[in-house]
């Protein structure tokens, strides 16, 4: 499906700042595992991203809408790669626009962010150029994780909505 040896990310813990939605009541850290019988969609991005991040998250939103009731078994976790600008408040508002089943994950240090990225083979870079413009580079893969912290599928940016829905249906039958 993806890799001969799927990524295992269940040991990854990221500071959890979820304050709205279904999971507002939570522990201070979030481990990268789905609820039993559910799927966890994980994305590394930043809220002031106008193109890749909202494209991907809107796609997940559209897929969840088409899946109807079974989308209750699909949660979304976004790890910000821009924790300085993405305050907890900003992240909660942003993610609320896409689903109420979200986990807003806000690394408390660059080490914490890098550890999480390493487990997913993700990466990001933030540079401020001479004119003060902040440029964020980041890998834009969308991951689906099961209750054991195994990455079941990795969608590259640009995945087709029907393919995503198809994958969700297959995976929801399995978990």
């Amino acid at each position, binding site marked *: *499906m*993806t*890799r001969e040896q799927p990524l295992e990310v269940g040991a990854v813990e990221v500071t959890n700042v979820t304050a709205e939605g279904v999971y507002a009541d939570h522990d201070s850290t979030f481990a990268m595992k789905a609820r039993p019988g559910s799927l966890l969609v994980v994305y590394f991005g930043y*809220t*002031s*991203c*106008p*193109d*890749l991040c*909202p*494209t991907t*998250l*809107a*796609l997940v*939103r*559209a897929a969840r809408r088409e899946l109807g009731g079974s989308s209750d078994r699909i949660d979304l976790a976004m790890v910000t790669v821009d924790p300085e600008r993405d305050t907890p*408040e*900003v*992240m*909660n*508002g*942003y*993610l*609320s*626009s*896409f689903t109420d089943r979200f986990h807003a994950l806000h690394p408390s240090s660059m080490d914490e962010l890098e550890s999480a*990225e390493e487990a*997913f*083979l*993700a*990466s*990001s*870079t933030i540079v401020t150029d001479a004119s003060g413009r902040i*440029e*964020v*580079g*980041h*890998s*834009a*893969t969308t991951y689906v994780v099961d209750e054991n912290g195994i990455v079941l*599928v*990795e*969608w*590259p*940016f*640009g*995945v*087709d*909505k*029907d*393919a*995503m829905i*198809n*994958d969700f249906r*297959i995976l929801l039958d399995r978990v």
Partner: protein
Amino acid sequence: MTRSTRHQLRQTAKGFALVAASALVIASCGGDDDSSADTDAPAGEDITISGAWARTSPMSVTVGAVYMDITATADDELVGASVDASIAATVEIHETVAADMEAGDSPMPGEEGEEASEDTMAGDMSGGMTDDTMAGGMSGEMTMRPVSSVALPAGETVMLMPGGYHIMLLDLVTPLEVGQTFDVTLTFANAGTKVVTVEVRDEAP
């Protein structure tokens, strides 16, 4: 440019003819456009813009992106875009690119050449799970960069679309909401300016 051409190929191959068809319905063309300009019409310059849309802006953010298809009948360049100050304070033309292109490891569809795109697509459309051996286990980063112009080769439809070129709106005055429309004034190197009406949507048309 080449990337847009590849996107176009992908879309065509994916059978997204509907995109083009529905786009024409909301096409808004400049006054000197006969609005039925055929892409291979060899006549004097004519610019056709279709499928212009902007994504709804999530709460808490003040950036947005506008996408559209542009076809010029003679070689031209898109060199600027603006909106009324009641929409956004700043407008820039941006391109999403692989952050480290010389590493030759980009997960962006279309970036690895047309054959790679076709492969990705075949996986997307197969009956089972997507076969996304993408990026060979690496994590190619993507970033945005402002561009001063977008080349519009004669007769070629250049698509401003997610993952490629977009018109970025900064400092949105109010969130972009479904059903809203607003005008974007585009400036071309040769064809002057054109005003296009943009529809705010959750998803691409």
